[in-house]
């Protein structure tokens, strides 16, 4: 910020001191702008400000195409998945805990990547309770995802109401990454495919989905719209 050598104040203006109104180089007193000039300048500044605001909203709500959102999401989610798979190669007996951490991180990144909305609507919380119950009762993530998708589809066919697709996207992400992690364990010989296809009311089957939802909640707190 330049210092006016005529009055000694720091000024924002590059040519004219905003305090003594002198030219910073020559010291000549600048002529005051006419009311018409001041009004034109005001309009110009307001227009620039509006353009900036519109550009910001455009980027957030429209400018991130689906491809861009997917690329943002997978850049971090696949990295986390890769680290988890490396951990599974190294220590398969700790795969439950490494899986929970992975799902938590993926959940945090879900809203941050703008792939899903922030977790704030009541109907989304309701749907999350439904998918948690489905996962607990059906035990199998693929089956729970399919049943939920079929239920949402049937509801939409009956009512034609506007549905929030966030939970569907979250379930798609959850089922995909569960298939990836569990597939790795099955390939490694640590998990038996017969166990994966078995009904079992255990907290271990619900915990990864719970971690993903907690992550989504935490990510929503930090997303700045």
């Amino acid at each position, binding site marked *: 910020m330049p210092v006016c050598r005529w009055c000694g104040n720091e000024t924002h203006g590059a040519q004219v001191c905003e305090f003594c109104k002198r030219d910073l180089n020559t010291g000549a007193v600048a002529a005051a702008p006419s009311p018409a000039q001041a009004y034109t300048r005001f309009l110009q500044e307001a227009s620039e400000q509006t353009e900036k605001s519109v550009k910001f909203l455009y980027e957030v709500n429209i400018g991130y195409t689906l491809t*861009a959102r997917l*690329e*943002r999401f*997978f*850049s*971090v989610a*696949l*990295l986390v*998945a*890769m680290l988890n*798979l*490396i951990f*599974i*190669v190294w220590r*398969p*007996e700790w795969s439950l805990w490494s899986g929970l951490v992975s799902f938590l991180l993926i959940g945090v990144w879900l809203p941050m990547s703008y792939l899903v909305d922030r977790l704030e609507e009541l109907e989304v919380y309701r749907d999350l309770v439904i998918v948690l119950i489905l996962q607990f009762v059906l035990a*199998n993530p693929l*089956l729970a995802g399919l049943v939920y998708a079929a239920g949402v589809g049937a509801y939409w066919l009956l009512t034609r109401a506007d549905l929030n697709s966030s939970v569907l996207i979250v379930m798609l992400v959850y089922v995909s990454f569960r298939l*990836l992690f569990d*597939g*790795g*364990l099955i*390939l*490694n*010989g*640590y998990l*038996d*495919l*017969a*166990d994966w*296809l*078995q*009904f079992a009311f255990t907290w271990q089957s619900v915990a990864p989905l719970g971690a993903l939802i907690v992550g989504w909640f935490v990510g929503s707190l930090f997303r700045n719209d």
Partner: protein
Amino acid sequence: MLLVYRFLWIAAALGVLACLLALSNPNRRAPVASSQWVSIYLGQFALKAPADFRAYRDPLTQMGVNTPNSPIQLRDAIRVERGVRTGLRLLINTLRTDLQASGGESMFTNPSENYLRLIVRAHDAQKQKIAQAVTDFREKQTRVMRTRGVTALRTDFEYTHMPLLPLLRFRVQGYLITAPLGTAETLHIVAYHPPERAQEYRAVFDRMIGSLTVGQAKAEGGGY
């Protein structure tokens, strides 16, 4: 910034593929059981088992074993298992005194002489219950064996496990060992595992059975 994201997801996707290839390497299979072993005290049973095996008393087993005309009556049972195809079931059965043995002879007229007949009867009854409980039960071999200084019977078998999707069928290998427990009771050990990793699991089960004790006092002259 989008280019950075693009580079990251492409690199990570390649990394995921590399990890899946490493995981599918048949020479690098995960061990069938944890190297850490823990002591389990449940009901009448005490044994050591790998830490990733879950021990519990199965209420369905407790209810289902006692069928009306069966010569054996369940006294205690636990499961120590890692999955639906992998585990060990331990049962203590008492021969029923209210039923007459075939030919009108009571089972306990002379228990010491009737020793082998007791084992055979209890073994057959338990084998029948397993056959009824599973699909496509096939008995492979039954033989007399010695375990801990007592004579016991062992039957190797196979059956089919049908999970959630009926299209998929999983073969299960297993064996049933029946050993005497005192004069009127028998101990049944049912072990089962996937056939493709039989050798590894049998070594684990042998170690578990080797550490098994039943009740507080050990029988004189061997046994469990």
